[in-house]
Each structure stands twice: as C-alpha cells, then as structure tokens.
C-alpha cells in the first residue's frame, strides 16, 4: 500500500507540477472567458463608416435603402443577433457568420452625387475616379428596371474584401427593393409588417415532476460538460500512454518491477494520472460556474435575459463519477497500448481506435441533447465507452430516473474491471519486452498465459 501511494504521488506530481498542466488549466478558462467577453468587445468596435454614393435613376430605392441603413436600424438588428447567438449554440457555421455580420453592423455615410443627364459610362468613370482619389469608398448603381428579374445592381467598392459591409448593404438593399415592390402592388407596408411579425417562441422543458424549466441554458451547459469530459479523457488517456511508454523505452520498468508488483505500479499510475485529471476538471468546472455567473450578470445588465442552468451539487457529483468511470476505461486501454508498443509514435497509431470511440461518444451527446428520453439516448448513456460522456450530458439535459444512472455506473464499473484485468496482464509481460512491437496474437498469448 505504501508503495502504491508512492506511485500515485509520483504520477500526480509528474503531471501537475509541469508548466503544460498549469498553462492548459489556465488556458481553458481564459479561452472560455474570451468566448464570453470578446464578442461583446468587438461588438462595440465599429469599422470606419463606408462612404457610399447611390445612383438611383428611379428615385424610389435610395430613400428606402438609406432608411434601412440608419444607425438605429443597424443597432436594433445587432441586438437581435446577439440574443440569437447566445441561445443557439448548434447553429451552422454559415448561420454563425451571418449572425456575426449582423452583430458587427457596419455604418454607412451617404455621399451626394448628381447623375442628372449623364450616361452610365460617364457615371462609372466619374465615381471610379472619386474612389481612386479616396473621396469615396464605394458606389452602388441601381438599374432603371429595378423590378425586372434581369435587373443587375452593381456595387463597386474599394474594400472588396469587406464582407461585413457588403452583406449589411445587400440585406438592406433587398429589403428596400422588397418594400418598393409592395408599394407598387398597392400593399400597405406597415400593415404587412404587423401581419408578418414573427411569433414569440419560448421553449420550456418539463421535468419528471411536471415542473416547467428553462431548456436553453441547460443545454448549453450539457454541451460544455460533454466537451470538457471528452477533452480531459483524450488528454489524460494519452498521458497514461506516454508515461507507460517512457518507462518501457527507458527500461525503468525493469527497476520498478524489481521494487513493486506490476499491478501496484499500473494501478498507481492510473490513480495518480486520474487524480491529476480530476484536479484539472475541478478547476475548470469551478471557473465555468463563476464565468457563467458573471456572464449572466453582464447579459442581464445589457438587457438580454438568459437563465442560469439549474445545476445541483448532485449533478456535479455525477459528473465526477462519470469522468472517473470514463478515465479508468480509457486509461486502461491506453496503458495496454503503451505496454504493447516500443515508442510514443507507434503508440500514436494505435491510439486512433480509442480516440475514435471517444469522439463517437461525444457526437452521440448531440443526439442526447436533442432528445434526452429517446431509445437511443437511453442505450448510449448506459453503454460502456460512451456513457462517461453521454450520461452527464443526459443528466444535465434532463435527469433520467436513478435506476438508469445506477445501471450505467454498474455496467461501466464492470467494463473497468475487465479492462484493468486485461491491461494488467499485458502490462506485466509487455513492459519487459524490448526491441519490437508486440503483435495481437502475442498479446493474446500473454493474456492467457499470465
């Protein structure tokens, strides 16, 4: 037992007292804080306003466009976009980009330009000359037949790469043309606006006891928890592997085996590294809780109301339990791989399958978030290998009955017993086999003979 504790202490210190651990541990909250704060900062920084000349021979579009691009309207849109971004983490990349653009909302300054009696060629030449002279940033040519399907709106810009400005302008222009079409069709625009207003759609979950609860926030939390467990399992699983490979590669194993039982050494390593992972996860969860608290306060100060997910101490206890279950499952697999191979590079190739399984588990958590009570969610949150990620996600999305959690713990506990048993047998023999990588039949022989 004393030797076992010596191994635990050694492995724990080896990880925790390293710069990489400190940086990794601190970096995550900083990045998380960055995600929470940076958009708010960017949102307040605006690019320089774009000086634009609008050539509108019809005299119908330009006024509406100017109105759509007014400062108030852009601010209004940005506020809406921010609200959507907070409550919709599963948005596609495209949607996120769109939203980002809306949040940034560029300002436009309209430059007067009189096109009276000039030909299109002449207008282009004159305006382009102004751009070259830096008197103007962009100009827009509205065609005379603005409503025809073949009508081409031409936009010339000094800042052709400015997708934010381009997009804002395009949206405003579309809107302006649409209103003009409505007016031409004798439809009252203000009436149409009232009629086509979006409904207020509020999602409320109902928990087991029939109480209402807010789902938006708990599902962000579920996603974050799934991600955290996935990342820590992947990192610490591989940490186990490189620690095992180091002792094999440097032949320290032989000295260690002449001092303590291989099983003690392996378990000590698993427990020590596991505690290091737990330390990191604890720091992250605590800082996440603080950040969420601060974030919520900030948001409500900005007039955006989001509710705090309802996380109980029991839930946090479950996360740690499932993290540990996952850790021992993956750590024993990685220890087994480490004892089989001769170098970290070789181990890297072999660690692909377990990482894949881990990733699949992480992807399943999306299905669980969407429907925590489906058949699929039930099975993946019980199954060994997947449960350590999917069950905490499910508990946060909607806590399943206790027997399911208990069953999941039991099944994964049994999986750990089996995997540790296998790993210990491979470890005992593999650690003293130098020179070449063990083949699967060889490993199978060790397992049977040991």
């Amino acid at each position, binding site marked *: 037992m*004393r*030797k076992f504790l*010596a*191994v635990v*202490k*050694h492995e724990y*210190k*080896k990880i925790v007292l390293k710069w990489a651990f400190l940086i990794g541990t601190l970096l995550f909250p900083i990045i998380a804080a960055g995600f929470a704060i940076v958009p708010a900062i960017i949102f307040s920084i605006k690019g320089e306003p774009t000086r634009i000349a609008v050539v509108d021979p019809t005299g119908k579009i330009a006024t509406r466009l100017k109105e759509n691009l007014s400062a108030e309207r852009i601010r209004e849109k940005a506020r809406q976009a921010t609200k959507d971004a907070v409550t919709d983490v599963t948005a596609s990349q495209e949607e996120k980009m769109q939203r980002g653009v809306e949040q940034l909302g560029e300002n436009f300054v309209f430059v007067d330009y009189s096109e009276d009696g000039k030909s299109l060629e002449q207008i282009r030449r004159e305006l382009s000359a102004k751009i070259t002279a830096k008197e103007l940033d962009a100009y827009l040519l509205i065609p005379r037949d603005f409503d025809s399907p073949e009508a081409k709106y031409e936009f010339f810009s000094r800042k052709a790469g400015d997708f934010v400005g381009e997009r804002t302008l395009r949206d405003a222009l579309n809107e302006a043309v649409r209103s003009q079409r409505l007016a031409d069709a004798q439809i009252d625009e203000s009436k149409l606006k009232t009629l086509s207003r979006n409904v207020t759609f509020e999602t409320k979950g109902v928990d087991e006891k029939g109480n209402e609860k807010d789902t938006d926030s708990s599902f962000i939390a579920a996603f974050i928890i799934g991600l955290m467990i996935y990342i820590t399992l992947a990192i610490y699983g591989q940490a186990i592997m490189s620690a095992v490979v*180091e002792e094999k*590669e*440097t*032949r*320290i194993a*032989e*000295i*260690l*085996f*002449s*001092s*303590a*039982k291989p099983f003690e050494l392996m378990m000590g390593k698993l427990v020590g590294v596991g505690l290091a992972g737990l330390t990191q996860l604890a720091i992250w969860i605590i800082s996440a809780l603080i950040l969420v608290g601060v974030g919520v306060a900030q948001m409500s100060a900005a007039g955006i109301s989001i509710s705090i997910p309802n996380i109980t101490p029991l839930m946090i206890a479950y996360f740690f339990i499932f993290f540990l279950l996952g850790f021992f499952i993956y750590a024993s697999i990685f220890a087994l791989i480490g004892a089989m191979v001769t170098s970290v590079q070789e181990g890297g190739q072999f660690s692909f399958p377990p990482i894949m399984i881990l990733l699949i588990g992480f992807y399943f958590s999306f299905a669980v978030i969407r429907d925590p009570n489906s058949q699929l969610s039930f099975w993946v949150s019980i199954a060994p290998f997947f449960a350590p990620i999917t069950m905490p996600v499910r508990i946060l999305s909607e806590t399943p009955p206790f027997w399911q959690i208990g069953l999941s713990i039991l099944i994964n506990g049994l999986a750990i017993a089996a995997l540790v048993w296998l790993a210990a047998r491979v470890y005992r023999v593999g650690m*003293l086999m*130098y020179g070449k990588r063990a083949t699967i039949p060889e490993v199978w022989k060790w397992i049977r003979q040991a």
Partner: protein
Amino acid sequence: MTEQNTTLKVENVSKRYGDFTAVDNLSFSVKSGRVFGFLGPNGAGKTTTIRMIVGITFPDTGKIELFNQQVSTELQNRIGYLPEERGLYKKMKIQDQLRYFAALKNVPQAEADRRIDFWLDRMRLADWKKKKTTDLSKGMQQKIQFISTVLHDPDLLILDEPFSGLDPVNVEFMIEVVAELKARHKTIIFSTHLMETAERLCDDIILINKSRKIVGGSIREVKSSFGKNLISLRCEGGETVLLDKNLVNKIVEHADEKEIELTENADPQNLLRRLIESGATITKFEQVEPSLNDIFIEKVKETNA
C-alpha cells in the same frame, strides 16, 4: 552472519518461453559477503535467471531461496538490482527520481534524503542534485543508476554490466565503491562480459552457456580444474629437452620467450630439472594459469560445438 552463510540458493531451476528454454535445470548458490561472478555470453540466460532472483518472473520448475526464504515480492526490499538495460526519467530532477526509487523500496523520506546526499557526495555528483537527467553525461547517469540500487542499503546487490558506458577512470572508481560494499559484508552478484574485471573482483564464479551451467566454484578451483600445463620460458640452450614429445606438446614462440604446453600428466618440475641438467641458462620459468578469458572462450566454444 558468518562468511559461509548462503544468501542465495538456486536449485534445479528451469524457465521456458513457449518452445524456447531460457534456463535449463540450473543450480548454484551464492555465499554471503562474497562477490559472485555470473558469467556467460549474450543470450545464455543470465537476465532471465536474474529476473527470477529479483522476483520479476518466476521459475517454471525448481526453487529459488533468498536469505533462506522462498523468493517473494517482500524480499525485493533487501535486493538492489542494477539491470543491464536501464534508464532514468528524462525530464525529472535527479533528487526527485532517487526519492521515488527509494520510496518504492519502502525507505522513509527523511532517511532517503540523507542517503541521497551521502551517495551523491560519494559519487562526486552533489552539484547535480537539482539537475535533470538530460543535463547529465552518460557516465553520470550510470552513477545515478548505481545510487538508485544502493539507496535502500540492500543485503544483496545484483549488478548487471555495471561498468558499461564508464571511462577507465570511473571504472576504477566504481570498483573501489564495490569493494567498499563488500567490506560492509554485502553479497554482490556481478554479471559481466569483461573477464578481466571479473577476475579482479570475484571470489566465486559460475559460467553458463545455452541455458546451462558450464563451470562453477571459486576462481581458484575453476582455474585448476581447467588445468592446462602452460609454462612461460626464457632460456638459452636446452633445445633437445624441448623436443621430447613425451614431455612437450606444443611450443609457441614469442618475441623473447616461449610458451610451452606440456603433455598431459607431465610434471613441470621434471622439465625444469632436465633443462638445468642440459646446461641451459634459464632467466624465466613460470607456470602460467589460464586467464578467465581463456576459460570463457574455450568453454563457450566447446559447448557451442
């Protein structure tokens, strides 16, 4: 403990890996307080035998007794094992590594720290205590590994090629350290290919080849049992005596002396008398013992044939 107590007894031990027999019915014993040379070519089964002694693996048949008890993991705390293939944690401070190795042998931390300081000082490495392995030369690392084997003050030391990677000055230094340990009545099993060093250090030896014991016993016994009648001779005259086929088997001419191999049962004293009688002037007449190296090569060749 008296000189003749037995530290280690290996009895009819065999170990097989699949179809391959690594150790075949091997028996020997090591007396306490003596330096025991465990010799043999690569692949003879030395490492397998040592691993069974230190309790890393276990024999298929036969019995190993250490300090008059069956080998067990509890006895590991009384053994210091320096494996032939050995290493240190690359990015760890020397002090931390040594503390860990000591803790694994159940040495309390305060005592471990005291011994670490003592040994680093003895090895003239005190300045390197806080350095990492990667900052040390190969020779220094060898010495640190040696320290890790003696930190728990073991009664039995098993040193497998302890001097590899050391320069001649450091080899001499380490031989001195081993001699000190012997003076403190430690039993030392010393496995090596360097016959010259073995000859200097060992009281007893065993030579194994192809999983089996070839010869064993005290160095003196082994040498006399090998008993080749070799005479190193420098003289003028007496050629007729040396041509006597009943007396001399072979003559090898060196620069200024001859190596004479006598026939079996021939008495060196008889040769000396007859040379004097023949009126030869003798400036050197020495009965040469075979070196351990000669015995090693000869015996290994014999068993490989």
